[in-house]
């Protein structure tokens, strides 16, 4: 299908919006009516046609606006993109992975023409047509990591693998859920996960690291993660907390359906061939509560998940102060009917909302 790109903002007037198509394919992260951490990994080898899992790197209606927002963040704060000196080869690996994947998966939007080390890259939506020499940084306007990720939605952490650990040694992070590349750069897997509650006690990180160290070329993996964001902000960084943190206090029972967004990250993991590094793309999808409620199954389930979530997690995910207001809103979309297994909305088969007279 041809994608109609939105002209929208993730700041100031927040004109971000999801089309009916985007709502239907939103990666609702709860496969049952409750949530707890787990090593919820699966192979990243396609998915249902049109779903966000189908392509290696999903491109959707927000592409151009997200890239514009990224450029603004980088202009304000160049440290959002960093690469330690030994990670340049991994940057070329990532450039190659994205260019090959996008040109194969979206041939109407992207083209890659390779003649030895002379490569021509055409990005039609962004109006880019560049010829450069592969592995020669001098032939690109930015380093290979920054060049390609200014043209790819989502954050990218490039992890060096050594000493049976992973090290946050390069990345571009402008659409993050309150963590900082500049703070975490050079840390290992356990160091950068230190602030996460409950998961350490459950041994989640030891098992997750073991899984990640063994991700092999040709066998990428994926999982979903989630949090809550007030207003459709991509850049919820610690660096800018003074700008967005205060917005959490602007929720009212009247505006919560429109302002409160469920933020879901599609996290994927690819072994990079030339450097043996691991790339960890984190693609954020936002959907307002009122748009989510158009799917009866999601309405019922979101209410139950948020209601029963352990307090530590609601605190860590930053919405403990607004949980009561969220539940007041969400409860109106939960009539107590059972929900079907799995994350898909089942909008054709799920019963519509059946509110009793006392609600």
């Amino acid at each position, binding site marked *: 299908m041809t994608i109609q790109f939105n002209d929208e903002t993730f700041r100031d007037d927040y004109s971000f919006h999801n089309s009916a198509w985007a709502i239907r394919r939103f990666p609702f992260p709860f496969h049952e009516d409750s949530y707890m951490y787990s090593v919820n990994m699966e192979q990243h080898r396609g998915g249902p046609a049109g779903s966000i899992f189908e392509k290696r790197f999903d491109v959707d209606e927000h592409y151009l606006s997200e890239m514009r927002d990224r450029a603004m963040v980088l202009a304000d704060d160049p440290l959002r993109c960093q690469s330690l000196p030994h990670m340049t*080869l991994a940057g070329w690996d990532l450039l190659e992975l994205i260019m090959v994947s996008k040109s194969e998966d979206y041939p109407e939007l992207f083209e890659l023409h390779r003649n030895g080390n002379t490569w021509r890259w055409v990005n039609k939506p962004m109006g880019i047509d560049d010829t450069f020499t592969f592995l020669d940084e001098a032939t690109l306007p930015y380093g290979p990591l920054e060049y390609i990720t200014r043209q790819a939605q989502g954050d990218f952490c490039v992890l060096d693998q050594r000493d049976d650990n992973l090290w946050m040694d390069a990345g571009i992070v402008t659409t993050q859920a309150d963590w900082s590349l500049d703070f975490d750069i050079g840390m290992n897997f356990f160091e950068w996960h230190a602030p996460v509650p409950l998961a350490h006690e459950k041994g989640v990180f030891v098992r997750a690291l073991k899984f990640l160290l*063994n991700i092999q070329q040709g066998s990428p993996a994926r999982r979903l993660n989630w949090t809550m964001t007030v207003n459709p902000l991509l850049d919820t960084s610690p660096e800018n907390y003074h700008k967005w943190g205060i917005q959490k206090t602007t929720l009212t029972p009247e505006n919560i359906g429109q302002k409160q967004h469920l933020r879901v990250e599609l996290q994927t993991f690819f072994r990079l*061939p030339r450097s043996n590094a691991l790339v960890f793309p984190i693609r954020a999808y936002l959907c307002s509560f009122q748009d989510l409620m158009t799917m009866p199954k999601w309405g019922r389930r979101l209410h139950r998940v948020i209601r029963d979530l352990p307090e530590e997690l609601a605190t860590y995910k930053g919405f403990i102060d607004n949980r009561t207001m969220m539940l007041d809103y969400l409860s109106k979309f939960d009539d107590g009917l059972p929900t079907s297994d799995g994350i898909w909305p089942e909008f054709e088969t799920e019963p519509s909302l059946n509110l009793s007279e006392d609600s």
Partner: protein
Amino acid sequence: MSGAQKIAVTVTEIVPLNELVTRFKFKPTDGSLLPTFSGGAHTVVEMKDGAITRLNPYSLMSDPMDQTAYTISVRRDDVGRGGSLFLHRNVKVGDQMTISYPVNLFSLDLRAKKHLFLAGGIGITPFIAQIKQLERTNGRWELHYATRSVALGSYVDELTTKHPNEAHIYYDDQEQRIDLKNLLDGQPLGTHVYVCGPKGMIDWVRKTAADEGWPRESIHYEEFLAPKSGKPFEVKLAISNKVIQVGEDESLLEAMEREGVDAPYLCRGGACGQCETDVIDYRGNFIHRDHWLEDADHKSGKKIMPCVSRFEGKTLVLDR
């Protein structure tokens, strides 16, 4: 499914290098391009040897940037269980085979200011790919390669011709030895050491470096073990609810696979840790041969690596 992704290839060239070592070249059967890889990576080669399917890891030694073909060099092991003998005797140019995607358990530390390679015998192969990778990026390296004799010195001529200043050769039969202590002493700060060869050589390098005060993280090593033959034994698999027999010439992992049990694996040489299995009960002795488990794990009787380790005794019950 266990193991890495598979690639269907055709054998396009077989070159005997000397009395013991033969080089094999593989190209994709469908004419597509192979994945690039990083120096130090291996591929697992599948061999249909009669009723037995053997899966042996071999280091890739071609240029990591060359996507048209992979090459491996195989040393014939006359007393082994037959994987290398099968390749030497039964595989012909034009044969179709299955190999795995590259897997790297012996990666370069790209932070290194200098890479010091120590090779023993057929352990030269991963370094050949790493040298090609470093030459392309102007990396600084030095090789010290011990081999039995001039006649058995695989790739010595190629290395010393192309890299006269970096490649240093030592012949055992001429009583030449790597002067390791002095060699380590003369290295610039930020050097990483890589050793690939027989177990004795790896142990010697690790111990000498530790004694000289080198950080553990700066010493990298790889030794693939071929599973060894041994006495047959019986195993009960608790999850699969099966009692299986492990034959003299097969590994515990291979016996599980023969019985249709999907056991995880990657390197099949005791190095990667993927096949680590919990022991539920045993009466007898383990013959641990892996590099993965710690000594305490070996002594605990609670874990076994079925790719290379065996068991002698009455009862063995595994959590698989």
